[in-house]
């Protein structure tokens, strides 16, 4: 071995990384070479210096300070922007698992299919302010289901029979809905996958866009049902308000007093279901590609059959079970319904991921949950139901958690904490 070869191996020699034969060769060479001996001494000196310094720094203890700061800031952030954290969590979980992607698609379809089996007596058009809502070719707006601080904002681009929809708590999901052909295209913009869902059948009958829904309500309100609310500042702008009240619904429209363009629309259906629309843009240019039903370039089409049609009571009970067992750790939730479902979806996705079940099983859980909630949606706007399960333990046969009156039935169906069901006469309903 010559000096050059030896020098190349000296660091590895100091580190004890050489094979026996190499080590021997280096040692042989060192015996007779003072230059390499000096080099070795230098290297050993530097090695020791690194080790000593490393040990000194390793004694420091940042753990307590860092953890305190993390927990403290986490708490502050949770309070201030729990939505952002939720969004972050859901994005991460969705990204990791195809199971959760499908669960998310199912959740999104729930919102897409929102209770539109809503029938009112036909009547006449009522005011100037509704003209843009009725006639705009395209409408871009934000939609909030439930109370405004629910933190979940849906952004919609409405263009005739096509809708593009995104949701703030599932930032990588985009839905494109074709209401004419009753099809839905779900895009996972992070995983670059696309899924088609068939929303025909029972779901198709109910499925229309929020805009069409509002159009339907306002065109059917009778002249005498509309009241003026006067002027008020809405979202920082002067606005004039109207409220149209039907038997079971109310639509409030706040509009710009000069242009008559709506600024904000609030709808209340039955007692339990409400939504708000705002940040309107009427007749904006909407690029056709935004609402195209084709799988975009670079996306993989997933061959999952999403069947959400014809949900029944059995599906609903299954979703209650999932809610208590998986989401609530054995306890039924504070509230059920579309708003609660959308809020809980990230948690369900997380829990299912943590259960480490097969893709098939995970998909099934997501579907079952969504399907059962679809059944509940058919009741949601009608008001002949009551949920009393908050805090009840799964398996508790002594407590009723839900009752409803099926269409045309004289008796009520009552569901108990053990998920058994009984037919009950109106006078015997649990108080």
């Amino acid at each position, binding site marked *: 071995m010559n000096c050059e070869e030896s020098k190349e191996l000296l660091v590895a020699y100091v580190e004890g990384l050489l094979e026996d034969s190499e080590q021997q060769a280096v040692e042989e060479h060192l015996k007779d070479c003072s230059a390499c001996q000096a080099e070795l001494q230098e290297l050993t000196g530097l*090695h020791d210096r690194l080790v000593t*310094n490393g040990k*000194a*720094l390793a004694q*420091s203890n*940042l753990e307590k300070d*860092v953890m305190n*700061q993390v927990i403290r*800031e986490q708490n502050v952030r949770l309070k201030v922007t729990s939505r952002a954290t939720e969004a972050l969590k859901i*994005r991460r979980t969705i990204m990791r698992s195809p199971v959760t992607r499908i669960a998310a698609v199912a959740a999104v379809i729930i919102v897409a299919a929102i209770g539109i089996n809503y029938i009112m007596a036909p009547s006449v058009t009522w005011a100037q302010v509704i003209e843009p809502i009725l006639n705009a070719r395209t409408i871009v707006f934000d939609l909030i289901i439930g109370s405004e601080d629910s933190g979940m904002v849906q952004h919609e681009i409405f263009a005739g029979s096509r809708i593009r929809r995104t949701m703030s708590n599932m930032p990588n999901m985009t839905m494109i809905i074709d209401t004419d052909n009753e099809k839905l295209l779900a895009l996972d913009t992070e995983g670059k996958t696309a899924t088609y869902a068939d929303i025909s059948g029972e779901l198709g009958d109910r499925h229309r866009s929020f805009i069409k829904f509002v159009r339907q309500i306002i065109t059917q309100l009778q002249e005498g049902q509309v009241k003026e609310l006067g002027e008020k500042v809405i979202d920082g702008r002067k606005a004039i308000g109207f409220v149209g009240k039907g038997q079971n619904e109310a639509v409030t429209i706040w509009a710009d007093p000069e242009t008559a363009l709506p600024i904000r629309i609030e709808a209340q259906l039955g007692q339990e279901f409400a939504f708000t629309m705002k940040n309107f843009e009427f007749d904006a240019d909407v690029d056709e590609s935004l609402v195209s039903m084709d799988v975009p370039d670079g996306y993989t089409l997933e061959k999952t059959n999403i069947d959400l049609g014809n949900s029944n009571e059995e599906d609903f009970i299954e979703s209650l079970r999932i809610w208590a067992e998986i989401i609530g750790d054995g306890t039924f939730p504070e509230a059920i319904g579309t708003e609660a479902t959308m809020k809980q979806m990230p948690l369900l996705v997380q829990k299912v991921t943590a259960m480490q079940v097969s893709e098939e099983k995970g998909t099934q859980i997501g579907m079952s949950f969504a399907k059962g909630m679809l059944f509940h949606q058919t009741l949601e706007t009608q008001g002949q139901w009551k949920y009393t399960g908050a805090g009840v333990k799964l398996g508790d046969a002594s407590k009723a958690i839900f009752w409803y009156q099926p269409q045309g039935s004289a008796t009520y169906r009552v569901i108990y904490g053990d998920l058994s069901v009984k037919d009950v006469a109106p006078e015997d309903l649990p108080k």
Partner: protein
Amino acid sequence: MSENDKYYVERCLDGHPDDYRYLVRRYQGVLLANLAGKLGSRDRAEEAAQEALVRAYFNMGKLRKPDSFFSWLLGIADNVAKEHERKEQIQRQREIVRSFSEESSGTELSQDYALESAIAELPEAYRKVILLRYYGGHSCNQIAEQLDMPLGTVTKTLSRAYAMLRESLQQQKQAEVYEV
């Protein structure tokens, strides 16, 4: 080394902030070594390391590959250091530190500032290997795994890093002589 980085990163993202402590334990020494040379004092390095660790925690959602946590964390620490440097006119700082460091006054100053600043000047690939080996307690095999390179490459990188460190330390010495 119990669980790998990816495991803890995912635990944190799944809502178990407490598990972040294992990553802090694993990399605090590494960060300090990386920062001490850049910032000039132990206290400053600790402050910046803490900031980097907290920042990393709250940005974990942006980490695309959980198993590259270390490289990513190091990048954050480098950014923090840059921000601190800008604030504090580091050049002047260094001179002051250098003149003090001969008295080696214990707590405030790094024990071997010359070495740390030499490390701080290493190109990233070499810096990572040195940091993990001597400040993160990794064996060369573990480094190979962590940085996803063959063991032979780790050895060569280490060897080259030694050469660069020696050169840099040599230059520092000469500069001091010249200054005096």
